[in-house]
């Protein structure tokens, strides 16, 4: 059995302060494995983004453990967490978050630049990543010169260029039409074939279930379903703290 790329155990997260404080996650455990595309589904306010933020080391849990490649992140400060992100996690955002003043190539290269990789090799890696998402010919285009689907491809190229352990995508198809959404999901599924890399996609759209190797349902801060293979398409009801 392969070691999880990211694992969280019994994670509790409180958000806000005072009377406005809410418990976003109520003892969640989840292991993200390499070679798998996991869909994280749930209604608005169910804790998906909080869970994604904790998996991506953007937030620290109130209680519980986060392990990145087997190493606990406990006690890590903001800079240490940023280091974990740049070395192990690639992000894809719903609204792409590309830099409008940089070309597609530079946007991709940025993920390497923040790691201190700024040689000619970095330019080559960025070109390879763009080629992998089918945009080798658009390397000098600025984001505003690209379609939504193309911008999301650039964002995916940026997410994978540093060979991260995990790619975490927050509703990557939400702003795209069906055809582009399917193309993006197919690309993420392709990326997830690499056994050294896990891909987690937060999604609402049930039409993309077919791309998933595993579907995790979250509601009210608890994981209520976790299915693999053909069973991934079935609904399930479970307690909190399901781990796999």
């Amino acid at each position: 059995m392969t070691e999880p790329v990211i694992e969280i155990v019994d994670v509790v997260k409180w958000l806000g302060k005072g009377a406005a404080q809410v418990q976003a996650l109520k003892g969640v455990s989840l292991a993200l494995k390499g070679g798998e595309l996991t869909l994280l589904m749930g209604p608005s306010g169910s804790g998906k983004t909080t869970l994604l933020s904790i998996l991506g080391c953007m937030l620290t849990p109130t209680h519980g453990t986060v392990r990145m490649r087997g190493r606990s992140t406990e006690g890590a400060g903001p800079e240490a967490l940023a280091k974990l992100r740049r070395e192990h996690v690639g992000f894809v955002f719903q609204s792409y978050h590309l830099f409008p003043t940089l070309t597609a190539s530079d946007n991709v290269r940025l993920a390497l630049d923040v790691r201190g990789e700024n040689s000619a090799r970095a330019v080559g890696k960025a070109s390879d990543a763009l080629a992998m998402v089918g945009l080798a010919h658009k390397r000098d285009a600025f984001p505003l010169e690209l379609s939504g689907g193309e911008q999301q491809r650039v964002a995916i190229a940026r997410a994978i260029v540093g060979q991260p352990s995990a790619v975490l995508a927050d509703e990557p198809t939400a702003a795209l039409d069906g055809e582009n959404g399917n193309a993006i999901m197919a690309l993420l599924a392709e990326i997830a074939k690499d056994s050294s890399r896990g891909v987690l996609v937060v999604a609402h759209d049930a039409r993309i279930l077919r791309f998933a190797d595993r579907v995790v349902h979250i509601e009210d801060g608890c994981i209520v379903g976790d299915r693999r293979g053909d069973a991934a398409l079935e609904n399930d009801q479970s307690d909190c703290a399901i781990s796999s």
Partner: protein
Amino acid sequence: MSLIYRLASRNLLHDRLRFIATVIGIVFSILLVTVQLGLYLGFGRIVTTMIDHASADLWIMPPGTKCFEDPSTLDERTRFQALSINGVAQAAPVVIGYAEWRIAAGGTFPVFIVGSDLREGGLLPWNLVEGSLEALAIPGAVAVDRSYFDRLGVEGIGANAEIRGQKVEVRAVTSGIRSFTTTPYVFTTLDRARAFTGTAANKATYFLVRVAPGADVESVRHRLMANLSDVDVLTAAEFRDRSRSFWLFGTGAGFALFAGALLGMIVGTVIVAQTLYSSTKDHINEFATLRAIGSSGIYIHKVIICQALISAVIGFCLAAGIGLLVVAATADTALPIVMTPALTLVLLFLTLVMCVISAVAAILQVMRIDPVMVFTR
């Protein structure tokens, strides 16, 4: 090339109007500092013009003399005592003082008399453009600077006027010997200077000492101080420093100039800080994205500081260009603005420091960025 520079420059140029406003702010700020510090240097130079052009290793002067224009007097005996000291080759008397120049056509104008012995030298006019030093030996002969012709009511060689009831005639004309007090210098012989200023025949304001060849200036100075009473004996450099110190700080002029320069720095810092802050705010999503994809705080700080430095270099280059025009325009005025290579480097350094300090507010802002915001925007 790191993307930091590219990101910084494009962030700046993204809003060109704001960038132009920033650069204009820096240019005005640095110009103000340039003018103030240039005036400080120019003032420092012009108040010591006479000392700079005197042929003296040491100056013997009445005790407590604050500056060249201080008209206290010494007794001629002091000169002979000085001449008797080992290592003293010459002690040339110089008489200075204010007098009234009566224009032939009517009216008076204050002038500053400088009298030296034509044979011994001491402090004779320089930059002669008309006439000669020898001509000053002619009775009533004086030398004036051509920049004061209008004020003195003269048109050149041969012009007549009156000082203290005595007829004077312009026999030599200089160029560029200007007084920061706007009182024109009038050069003449020692005796005539005494007559024009009402100084007794056995008195002089300074004795300008030339040490004998091979003699050590400092040793001669010690001997002079040990043997002469009630005098100050200063090297030219010391007298220069004392004069500068008096005019620049004794009168408050220097503080005013520094205060102006400081004000320029503060205005520039606020302008650049405001721009960087609002630019950072406009690009907050991008900085949050950088943070989300794992950039270190230092990487983001570098982007902001790079923005500040780009603004600084562009602003400085423009300010330096305009500054050189200002320097050229004031070159022939009573108080020229002076620009030296050292001052240029100081200004560049100040500009860079100013802009980097300006980046602090923006850096404090990005330090508060929560990368999670990328999921909600």
